[in-house]
């Protein structure tokens, strides 16, 4: 009697090579679909245990993602506040102006300098004079920054949208003042009243002149309200006896094109400094950079703790399936497929948890997407460069990053359980009762 299938025995060499080659379609290949199927069913086999683990992963992922949107919101806020507060993305200044601001560090604007700017990259620009000054009412005296502006160019700064009590400046020849609410309170003054300004002229002599208040602006930060006093640029140039400006501030439509714009400005203003907002507002820039890093830190703390739970669950799953895994090995599943089985299971749990987490985060986010009112904390937040209405921000790259890092952790977590699984000897496993 002969067998139905298979080659006849005989020459061992032939048979051996036949043995290695014949099943080539299945050899060296990991049966991915089968493993996915097992993993999926196993996930449902221990609903409670896996449910708890999945909830923990989902909550952690959602927590990290929501925290991310808050951090990003904070980051954007700090950045925008820094940029709004007369900084812009890029600024042209005379060397030394930052350490010792004054009209003696003013400069001429060459005609047509703005041709170096790519209109697609730039939202707008403003040329200003900004000098330290002392302001006096009948009662009080304060040190301030006196800023000569062309109101038409200020669409790039907070002034454009700020609420004003009284009137705005009508043009760069307007010889009136717009001051902040906080300063108005300190000086106990009102629109229409007069204030006296003392500052240093281009010739080094002190200038003193009376100005009438056109209006009082509100800013989101009271610090700003007490620091900046605005008047028309031509009017200020008259007072100081100069035709110079002290700064050109450029706001970009497209933030990533900062470097390119800076390079272009450097060609137009060879002797001047061209600085980015990061150099001008180092504190805000540090906070923004910190927010970038803290996303990783929070992720590692929260998800790192979870990995132990995952490892524990996987080891338990391996230990209680020793017989089953041993049987699979006995029936001919290769060791590497057993490893792949554990890795697949871990990845599946992680992927499911991450998917639920992202969905939960999306749901919660949609509730707070319009912003969170933090008016009660106004002053303390303002000193961090934050505004009282706080708008969380979702960045797709953060979501992808968290998902990818979670899946990577899932792989790491499966390493030890997989080692345990692959050490199972089929015979010993089958003999266990």
């Amino acid at each position: 009697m002969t067998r139905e299938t298979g080659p006849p025995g005989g020459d061992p060499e032939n048979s051996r090579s036949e043995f290695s080659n014949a099943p080539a379609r299945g050899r060296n290949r990991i049966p991915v679909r089968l493993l996915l199927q097992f993993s999926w069913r196993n996930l449902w086999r221990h609903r409670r245990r896996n449910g708890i683990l999945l909830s923990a992963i989902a909550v952690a992922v959602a927590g990290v993602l929501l925290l991310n949107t808050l951090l990003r919101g904070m980051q954007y806020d700090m950045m925008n506040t820094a940029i709004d507060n007369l900084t812009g993305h890029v600024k042209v200044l005379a060397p030394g102006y930052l350490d010792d601001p004054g009209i003696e560090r003013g400069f001429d604007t060459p005609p047509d300098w703005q041709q170096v700017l790519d209109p697609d990259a730039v939202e707008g620009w403003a040329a200003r004079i900004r000098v330290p000054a002392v302001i006096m009412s009948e009662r009080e005296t304060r040190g301030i920054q006196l800023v000569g502006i062309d109101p038409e160019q200020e669409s790039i700064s907070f002034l454009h949208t700020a609420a004003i009590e009284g009137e705005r400046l009508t043009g760069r020849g307007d010889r009136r003042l717009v001051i902040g609410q906080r300063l108005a309170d300190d000086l106990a003054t009102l629109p229409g009243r007069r204030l006296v300004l003392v500052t240093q002229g281009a010739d080094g002599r002190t200038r003193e002149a009376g100005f009438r208040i056109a209006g009082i602006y509100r800013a989101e930060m009271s610090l700003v309200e007490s620091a900046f006093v605005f008047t028309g640029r031509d009017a200020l140039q008259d007072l100081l006896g100069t035709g110079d400006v002290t700064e050109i501030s450029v706001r970009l439509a497209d933030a990533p094109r900062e470097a390119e714009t800076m390079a272009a400005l450097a060609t137009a203003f060879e002797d001047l400094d061209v600085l980015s907002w990061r150099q001008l507002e180092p504190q805000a820039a540090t906070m923004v950079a910190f927010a970038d890093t803290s996303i990783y830190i929070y992720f590692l703390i929260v998800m790192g703790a979870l990995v132990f739970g995952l490892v524990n669950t996987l080891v338990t799953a391996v230990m209680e399936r020793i017989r089953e895994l041993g049987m699979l090995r006995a029936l001919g599943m290769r060791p590497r497929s057993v490893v792949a089985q554990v890795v697949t299971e871990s990845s599946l749990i992680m992927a499911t948890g991450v998917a639920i987490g992202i969905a939960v985060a999306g749901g919660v986010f949609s509730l707070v997407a319009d912003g969170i009112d933090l008016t009660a904390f106004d002053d303390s937040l303002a000193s961090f460069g934050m505004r009282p209405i706080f708008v969380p921000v979702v960045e797709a790259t953060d979501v992808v990053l968290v998902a990818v890092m979670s899946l990577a952790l899932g792989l790491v977590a499966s390493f030890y359980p997989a080692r345990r699984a692959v050490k199972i000897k089929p015979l010993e496993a089958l003999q266990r009762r």
Partner: protein
Amino acid sequence: MAEEVVTCRRVSRTYAEEAVPVHALCRVDFELAAGEWVSLAGPSGSGKSTLLHVIGGLDQPTEGSIVVDGVEITGLAAADLSDLRLHKIGFVFQAYNLIPVLSALENVEFILQLQGVGRAERRQRSLETLDSLGIPELADRRPGEMSGGQQQRVAIARAIVTNPVLLLADEPSANLDTATTEELLDVLRNLNRSRGVTIVTATHDPMVMGYTSRQVNLRDGRVVTTGS
């Protein structure tokens, strides 16, 4: 003479871990011709299971040579032994060892899946095998929803769906009542006679011995008698 499916030469398996080394098998010579159904008999601890395990590549002998279907299997790497078991051997254990999360059909099918057989062929061969064992209606049931005899038949289906060179069954009837055992033995006889499957069973059960073509008696790891 028919070709030899298994040739064991001076095979020993010694458990040296114990204080006194246990010689589970001691210089066993054993041949199995294609189409035979041999039953291994002997008292408990005589080495029946051990012999099945070394023949099936589940255990490695400490000494000797084992050729299965023309391939010397002693000294093969773990992955190669896996392939040997997957492609050439069918196992039926005392405990049925079905995967609880898979249906009967899937339990049979996944072996073909491990072999890399395509979906349609896999399904068809599995269904045919369940059919030939008289249990097509069990296809969608999970092991928890089947009796012991039914599970054992599914286990046999799983063992033969790959058309193995050799079917090894260790105490296949140990958990079954007489009537079910008889049905099981009919199934095995049918496989042996009509499909030419070569079978080795290890058992204490005299009923099983009545069905086989040859009986090999073991005692203390040695072959004592062999005859039909």
